[in-house]
């Protein structure tokens, strides 16, 4: 996978993850073009399109579009399910995720993505394992903060 973009129906970019080295200028150009292309498509159209020399796989969840660019050899359907699994992970973590969760906790959205995908490839496809890793980290931080509070108290 070369990159993943999350954007709203209004075309606002909510999350961007690039797995190939590109300049900021190029990233902005690609984003603009792709958001426009995808938003122009009608609901019942197929989830794949040829774009430049890449294949674009996208799916809409409520107000958010999840959009991945993959290479010629990559598998479109499994990419579609990568998107779905990511949505499931967000949903489980936030408890019925909505666009606002991703806006206000954008850093968490990135952390979850890093546990799931790395270098553009699936790292851990088990939902349980990914969430375990994230929750462990949350726990780690909470206990530490409690410790700090304790030390202030005493």
């Amino acid at each position: 996978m070369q990159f993943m973009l999350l954007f709203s129906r209004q075309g606002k970019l909510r999350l961007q993850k690039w797995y190939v080295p590109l300049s900021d200028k190029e990233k902005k150009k690609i984003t603009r073009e792709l958001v426009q292309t995808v938003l122009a498509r009608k609901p019942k159209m197929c989830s794949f399109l040829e774009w430049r020399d890449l294949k674009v796989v996208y799916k809409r969840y409520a107000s958010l579009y999840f959009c991945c660019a993959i290479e010629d050899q990559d598998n479109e359907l499994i990419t579609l399910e990568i998107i779905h699994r990511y949505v499931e992970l967000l949903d489980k973590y936030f408890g019925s995720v909505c666009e606002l969760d991703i806006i206000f906790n954008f850093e968490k959205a990135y952390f979850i993505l890093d546990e799931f995908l790395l270098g553009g490839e699936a790292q851990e496809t088990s939902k349980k394992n990914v969430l375990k890793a994230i929750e462990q980290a949350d726990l780690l931080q909470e206990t530490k903060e409690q410790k700090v509070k304790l030390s202030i108290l005493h």
Partner: protein
Amino acid sequence: MQHYGCRQPLNSKEEENPPTCMERSPTQLCCRLARDVTGISKMPAVSKGDGMRGLAVFISDIRNCKSKEAEVKRINKELANIRSKFKGDKALDGYSKKKYVCKLLFIFLLGHDIDFGHMEAVNLLSSNKYTEKQIGYLFISVLVNSNSDLISLINNGIKNDLASRNPTFMNLALHCIANVGSREMAEAFASQIPSILVAGDTMDSVKQSAALCLLRLNRTSPDLVPMGEWTARVVHLLNDQHLGVVTAAASLITTLAQKSPEDFKTSISLAVARLSRIVTSASIDLQDYTYYFVAAPWLSVKLLRLLQCYPPPEDAALRSRLTECLETILNKAQEPPKSKKVQHSNAKNAVLFEAIALIIHHDSEPTLLVRACNQLGQFLQHRETNLRYLALESMCTLASSEFSHEAVKTHIDTVINALKTERDVSVRQRAVDLLYAMCDRSNAKQIVAEMLSYLENADYSIREEMVLKVAILAEKYAVDYTWYVDTILNLIRIAGDYVSEEVWYRVIQIVINQDDVQGYAAKTVFEALQAPACHENLVKVGGYILGEFGNLIAGDSRSSPLVQFNLLHSKFHLCSVPTRALLLSAYIKFINLFPEVKATIQDVLRSDSQLRNADVELQQRAIEYLRLSCIASTDILATVLEEMPPFPERESSILAKLKKKKGPGNLPDIDDTRWNVNGSAEHSEDTESTNKVTPHHPFTDLLNLNSTPSAGASLLVDVLSDISTPAPITVSEDNFSRFVCKNNGVIYEDQLLQIGLKAEYRQNLGRIYVFYGNKTSTQFLSFSSSVTSSDTLKTHILSTAVDPTVDGGAQLQQVVNIECLSDFTDAPVLDIQFRYGGTLQKIAVKLPVMLNKFFQPTEMTSQDFFQRWKQLGVPQQEVQTIFKAQHPMDTDVTNAKILGFGVALLIGVDPNPANFVGAGVIHTKNTQVGCLLRLEPNTQAQMYRLTLRTSRESVSQRLCDLLSDQF
């Protein structure tokens, strides 16, 4: 009302099922969004981990901004605040630092530039608190900056975390390396990560991160990832207990195996074994790795992908085990679905399509290929658009296999139907591709006809490509050329605007080369031109063909010469300048073909609108053609305006264009042996000389014959030649000898690139300015150059930092410094490489650095000259040659050449004033060599005698060789 502005995106099927947690999420998203839209903005309830209140407030503020200006204002205020906090005297605690860095990150992700905060992020990264570290890493990963002092600090932090033995810290560090993936990181860590990956005591999650981290580094800097003992152990990760580790490792191994398949051959048997276990497992066996009742779909796809790096296994047992796996996957496609969820069918079909890709890749099991084809045939009529799209795409590759080509063909009606009925243009595009791929002689007429009829209403975005495809198929499978001519004329009629020059050039070439179709072509274009509004491209084809072959239909009174002329001329005023120029040429051809219309045409040429046309080209043609028709005898006219000779056989420029458009990889193989529509190739020489008869023969430049290997065509040649074993490039020295007596000029030129030189020399040093001009309108990528020379010549490219891209039409300058150590013969060679339109171009040019460039002229008297001349009397010191003059013997020119050669021209030294005498010293680092020369012309015999005397035999010989070539 809460659902205002929302649409349920998931299909109705899912609504029928009781929603699970995931299914509810979109609905939730709707409600929350609805609140959002109606202005009841609410903080999200979730505040997992640590809520950074300040951050949430800031984000709310931004969201409440009514305009872009307000947002920018709010952001600038915040940036000023953060800046002052960072600069302030009071040391910030970790939490505040984290909060501010997070705000900066948010601002950056909104699309604004951030130029500070990196240092604070680096501080966070070395914090002991997990969340601070995490935010630090996130900031660095997103805002990579090649700021050198920071890189070493960042790398230091990463190093500590990698060594910490704390798996969460190690994972953060590995994620950061994988996300940034820069060369600096590869240099620092590429050698360390393999050992983390294969160490026995590494945690599974760290192994997973390490594997994919290595994959990323291998993609960006493969040269820095050392191969070694670890590679064998990585392969064994395919046997790991933990399926997550296997999944990550499978990706890594696939990437590595693509580059060096031999080293990872052992992975084949392990991958087959693993795959076999997965496909035969019950769906619950794999617990959390089962996805909607499909066992480990991601891993299955990856294993199947890995196997596509290799040919079918040689070992019979292994091979049959793999075949069993593939059959099982194909069988499962026929089983009733275990769930109605789209996720179930997607995951299952993802594995199926990857299995079919492997079957096509192996291209060796006819039964599997036919089964795959039948399966795809079912999908062609599936109600899921996605599946129809993928089936069309996958069948395209299947069509090129000899085993399945016939099976694919049986689906022609379905595919044609898809072209007519699919509502999504991307699906229709796939249908066009498949029709193109499945076309052969047996169905060409049907497919071309369907494509033509579709073209009438086709989407603008795919018209040009379709036109090219129709043109290629029509030519490739033409049994009779009348059909071909009809098809192309139809193409121009239906989609004239999209018919590129290549297409109509091609139809003219073919008509000229095929005697039996010329009469038909003339008749057909004549009829087509009758239409009141016809496309300009048709006027071009019509003008050309009637100009050549109008005589073949002139016998019919309905198409008499005058009728033909009037018909063409009725279009003249509506056409653009190039077309009018072409028509003028057709008129002069008419004067030759039909003497009876000569007067009429002369009147037209004589009119003010022609003779005084504002366009120079039209005016010149009108004047010249008019003169030609007035003064030339019939015989001369007949010779000058003779029928065009057949075109030399060459690659179809249309195919080249399509390849260029699609990129070489995306086009199904074309059987080149079938491209024999052209006439014989023997006439290429004659063609050129015939064309030269008329001062500017319009047809020559029209067809672009002399520059045939235009960008497109040469691209095609490159594409077709075997790239893996490039022929040795010949060093171009065409213009080399022109530089013996001068220092500036063009040393190399082809269709893409022009190389100009400007050189200056002083004593034993030289400097050459090299100018690379991109003649195309496309960028050259990965441009690089190097100079190689013999030991006696030291060359050094000064401006090494040549920009790797050269824009279309732009020029790039480079400076080469040269030092001459001792006398030499071999010139340095300039090697250039760049990518143009996806193909690697390699050019080698001999740089015109010759011994005489290091001459310093020496003035001397007649007495001195002859004294030294006698001193250099040893036979080896003198080299003499007698040669015939190649150029007119002009004294001034010769003087200039001798001066240009670098010696002083000594006047009044030689008793015979007709002779030329020169003297100079060659400077090398090691020695200096004095040199005297004498050139004696014999104008009667048109001969020269050249004598050189120097203290060194090799120098005398070399200088004599160089100079004797110049007169």
